[in-house]
């Protein structure tokens, strides 16, 4: 876990190919598993940073992360390889599935399969939240901000861009103003 590995271009493509292929119901848990724990390309902290940036920047989060990680290791070529690796297999698969789905959408085994996959996928995402939350400093402000974000999005159903427009500058501003305590 301590020594980080710098992947070559082939490994970069293969890594993101696997992440794309195995990310049922969202790619983030698999991305964290592969990038941090399995392949040691990033530390926990770097992953959290890049995830936060990917979320605040517009566009699909995981594609943003792939761009950032790919370009860190191999510039423009790395970014293209990471994104292509990430999207290629899922794109082919989903087009196949969409064709099949029209024939089988009533099939009970498919319904059952989805009924089991969905809670497992959501559980994985919750596991990732727990990992990220465990890294937050044990102080009032960060947790208050996290709860506020949660309520604004899940409770009040405010549009995401409004929440980010208000809370992102607030969080960054507080962390800037009080570098030692606060956040």
């Amino acid at each position, binding site marked *: 876990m301590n020594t980080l590995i710098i992947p070559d271009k082939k490994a970069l493509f293969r890594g993101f190919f696997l992440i794309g292929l195995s990310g049922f119901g969202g*790619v983030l848990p698999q991305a964290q598993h592969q990038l941090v724990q399995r392949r040691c390309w990033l530390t926990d902290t770097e992953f959290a940073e890049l995830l936060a940036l990917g979320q605040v920047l517009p566009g699909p989060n995981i594609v943003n992360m792939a761009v950032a990680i790919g370009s860190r290791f191999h510039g423009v070529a790395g970014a293209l390889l990471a994104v292509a690796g990430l999207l290629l297999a899922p794109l082919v698969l*989903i087009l196949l599935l969409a064709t099949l789905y029209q024939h089988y959408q009533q099939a009970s085994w498919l319904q059952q399969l989805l009924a089991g996959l*969905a809670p497992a996928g959501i559980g994985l995402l919750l596991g990732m939240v727990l990992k990220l939350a465990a890294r*937050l400093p044990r102080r009032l402000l960060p947790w208050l901000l996290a709860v506020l974000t949660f309520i604004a999005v899940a409770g009040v159903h405010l549009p995401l861009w409004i929440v980010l427009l208000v809370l992102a500058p607030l969080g960054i501003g507080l*962390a800037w103003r009080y570098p030692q305590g606060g956040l």
Partner: protein
Amino acid sequence: MLLFLFLMFVQFSLLAVGGANAIVPELHRVVVTELHWMSGQEFAALFALAQAAPGPNVLIVSLVGWKVAGVPGAIVSLIGICLPSSLLSFWVARWWQQARGSRLTTAISKGLAPLTVGLIAAGVAMMAASHPPSWAAGLLLASCALLSWRTRLNPLWLLAAGAAAGLGGLV
């Protein structure tokens, strides 16, 4: 048509603040209500498919393109939605690498960390709420969460367990 799809999703790209799912309501409005490319039911089915299939949720966009213009439509739509935001994150990532450790980047990463937790937690809550509640599903969800938090198990094993529980009629 391909050019139209491309330009449409280029515009959507920078609107997707907070992730691909942020544009789904607007996409629904444009594709179903305005352009009449498909019915609301068809859109919902495509959305469910994009959620359940492996890969990022942004693939809903390629399904819309596929529906209208086949495989080239799917590819063009996907490139359209990724291009502007990817260029932006390329430059931000480059700047981030250079400025890493400065007071500003430290403030950004510390200031945004709570938001990340809140946002993903909200996503979890909303997805969980969209499924009919049951003890079995809740138990499956909680045990997957606990195992992925506390162990370094490959998430695929947990998904396989979920799939098996589903096929076995336990969920």
